[in-house]
């Protein structure tokens, strides 16, 4: 829409609705006051972003900035929203773009380069934009096949460990995964097979997987909470699949809050089926509070923030000095060699692969 028309529309609307009052009440209703002011830094993220209040207060204590968090849907949506609003960004820092979506964000140029303090403590393997510093890695984790320990114990069957195991007849009809077109773990699993079997080989693999009775549902929630027999939700919902594509952090998550802690969690991880997902933060181009944004990105690599993340978001810290909580070390799986793919490669093939995957697996 052209600008003058747009102005006219806006002016009329403002006059009619008394929007100044509306805007004023909108602003004053927010905890932490105006986003534009120097004392607030606005973090734009997805729905899964969580941080302890005490940690955010620590940031305020250290820097004087208050954090205002704005969330918009799942990771994909949040990234798309950030891209669409790049001419007038919603905040100062964006957190939550992962390696599967990174190229789209970078290609659209939504970030300003900034080399965060503390990056020296982050291993190079996580630094996807080490040359440009447009994004800073914050957390990492793996998407892996999870298994229901009780099921395999009851059936006196060894749980699968690798991708090749999953197409063996003894695991026929046991796996539920997510739609790669709509679900982030679903996509990660497809990418993992592409990383493992190559640009064309993955299709062979999926043909076999389909023949072995893989079930596809739309979202992680249905897969994990409804179909997977090992999760709390799945037990109530009488889930019928002992294998599910989920996170390496799901086993510790299942026992968090249990009293007393069990000897062994109900869920295990097939460590040979993992794909690494790293989440990044970046300073938004056009940010109103650049200094505050930089401070926030720095803070996200601090030990305080890094050690808060695991129990808030079920992810692992990227900073080497951060310690994992006990529940992670005790119940979590040690994934030593996850599959990875370069963000550029993902960006190049993603849409085509998803299309091929859909017609291969869903139709």
């Amino acid at each position, binding site marked *: *829409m052209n600008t003058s028309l747009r102005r006219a*529309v*806006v002016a009329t*609307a*403002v006059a*009619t*609705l008394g929007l*100044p009052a*509306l*805007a004023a009440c*909108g602003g004053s209703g*927010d*905890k932490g006051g105006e*986003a534009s002011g120097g004392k607030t830094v606005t973090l*734009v993220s997805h*729905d*899964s972003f*969580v941080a*302890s*209040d005490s940690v955010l207060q620590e940031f305020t204590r250290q820097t004087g900035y208050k954090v*205002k968090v*704005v*969330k*918009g*849907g*799942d990771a*994909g*949506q949040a990234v*798309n*929203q950030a891209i*669409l*609003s790049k*001419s*007038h960004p*919603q905040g100062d820092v964006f957190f939550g773009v992962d390696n599967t979506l990174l190229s*789209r964000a970078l290609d659209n140029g939504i970030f300003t380069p900034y080399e965060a303090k503390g990056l020296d403590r982050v291993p190079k393997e996580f630094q996807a934009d080490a040359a440009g510093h447009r994004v800073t890695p914050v957390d990492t984790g793996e998407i892996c096949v999870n298994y229901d320990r009780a099921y395999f114990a009851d059936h006196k069957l060894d749980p699968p460990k690798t991708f090749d195991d999953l197409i063996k007849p003894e695991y026929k009809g046991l796996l539920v995964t997510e739609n790669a*077109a*709509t679900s982030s773990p679903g996509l990660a699993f497809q990418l993992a097979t592409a990383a493992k079997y190559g640009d064309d080989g993955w299709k062979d693999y999926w043909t076999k997987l389909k023949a072995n009775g893989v079930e*596809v*549902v*739309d979202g992680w*929630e*249905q897969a994990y909470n*409804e179909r997977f027999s090992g*999760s*709390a*939700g799945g037990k109530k*919902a*009488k*889930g019928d699949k002992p294998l599910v594509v*989920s996170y390496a*952090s*799901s086993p510790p*998550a*299942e*026992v*968090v*809050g249990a009293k007393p802690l069990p000897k062994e969690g109900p869920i295990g991880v097939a460590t040979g089926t993992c794909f690494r997902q790293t989440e990044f933060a970046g300073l938004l181009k056009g940010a109103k509070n650049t200094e505050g944004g930089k401070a926030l990105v720095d803070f996200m690599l601090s030990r305080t923030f890094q050690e808060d993340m695991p129990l*808030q978001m079920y992810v692992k810290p990227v900073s080497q000095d951060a310690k994992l909580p006990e529940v992670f070390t005790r119940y979590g799986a040690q994934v030593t060699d996850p599959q990875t793919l370069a963000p550029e490669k993902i960006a190049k093939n993603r849409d085509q692969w998803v299309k091929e995957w859909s017609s291969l697996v*869903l139709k």
Partner: protein
Amino acid sequence: MVLARPEVTEAEAAGAPDVTGAPAARQAAERAPGARRAATRLGLMAVPLAFFGVFFAYPVASIVTRGLTDGGRWQLARVGEVLTDPGIRDVLWFTLWQAAASTALTLLLALPGAYVFARLDFPGKRLLRAVVTVPFVLPTVVAGSAFLALVGRGGLLDELWGVRLDTTVWAILLAHVFFNYAVVVRTVGGLWAQLDPRQEEAARVLGAGRLAAWRRVTLPALGPAVAAAALMVFLFTFTSFGVVQILGGPRYATLEVEIYQRTAQLLDLPTAAVLTLLQFVVVAALLAVHARTVRRREATLRLVDASRTARRPRGAGQWALLASVLAVVALLVVLPLAVLVLRSFEGPDGYGLASYRALASAGAGGGTFTVAALDTIGNSLTYALAATAIAVVVGGLAAAALTRREGRLVRGFDALLMLPLGTSAVTVGFGFLIALDEPPLDLRTSWILVPLAQALVGVPFVVRTVLPVLRAVDTRLREAAAVLGASPLRAWREVDLPLVGRALGIAAGFAFAVSLGEFGATVFIARPDNPTLPVAVARLLGRPGELNYGQAMALSTILMLVCAAALLVLERVRTDRTGEF
């Protein structure tokens, strides 16, 4: 035909100018001092028009324009490409036929229910009517997972007969019945209760059998209401999103789902724009048909006080009907809701309040979820109240402007108000993002955006509830007040407001319940981190772990109870003559 219309009304006016002062005189009265009334009406419309302009038309136009232009040039070739894509055609075909099938199935199962709720008296009727409405206002995330307990593996059907319907189209159809049962019961039943039973009795006396009397007298009278209900159900199922996603599995996609994927996941705005326009066309056509049937319904019927028409069931037939309707309600509506409640009490050590206790202490204890449940409930109530206030003001003014029937402009405005019901939430949400990004309209990081988006959905309900009542207010009551010395404003306050007050109350309550359960618009808007109940439920469901799952169920139960309480209050104040819901 259309052109001939004015003459027809004039002929009518000339035919009976003096009888009881009524329609003819009224119409004529409007024509003469037309300018002032037109000005008044325009004044009344200004706020709703501005509201819809800024918070609906402008954002949607922005996102569609963004999709269909490239560097300022229109890319209309895209339209042809999308429309000829066989994949898209499959989606459109599925969307249409599942909506038609869902509508038929809903009518089949809910029409007997409409009769029972309208004409039979039985204990607990009010409570039950509130209960069947709960699914309609529940977010699909919650209701979808509850419904799985009925048709999914390990669900009741599976246990009893080994029948599993999840990921089949039957699950989608049945869930659509679950969601829209109340639409039929309320729209058709509401009218049925007010049809004068003596008309059917008159037909019986004239020699018609029971069935013949029903077919010849009651059915034609109900016809328009059935058509209106059917169209609403069709509209809701045509734009179905959550149900298809959760129950249908990845093989089924409606236009709405496709728009969501193209916009939110793939950032394929051109295709999304074409699909949005396509959906607009279908929805606009539906609304046009709906407006016609509604007009016909208002025009012709003689209605009586609903409380006089209901009786205790008599005879084996009526008892059997009552029993079968109650069975359907129990199986399709109550059972899934009950499963939800049950699961909220299920803990690792058997049944108990563990999940609720976790909710109460969340944020402090386990550290798994930072927003305390009480805050979430508080947020939801605040948002819902704000959304209700906006919806009542905007919808009330719109209804006042629409009170007088005539004029194509007015009818167009009526349909415009309904359009948000048929527009993808993701389109609106993303539209907000790119349209409302400059001061003074930069509300993107303000909490007010959420109630504004919710109000978009609430306004049509307010209009549809209040409008019929306003139209039923006798113009001469206003005239009586004027002759007694009341200015037009005073007359409105003294005459219209008290009569419409109850309808407004009901509309407000309904808008409140709908806002409480609203999920789509809320989740697609970036907003400060004050999650509403449905958003918190979705977030809890999105995390692994016993604790989260139990809390999700507990929060859902709370949401359900709040919705049910709001609806139950409505049942108490139901007037004899309320609108379509």
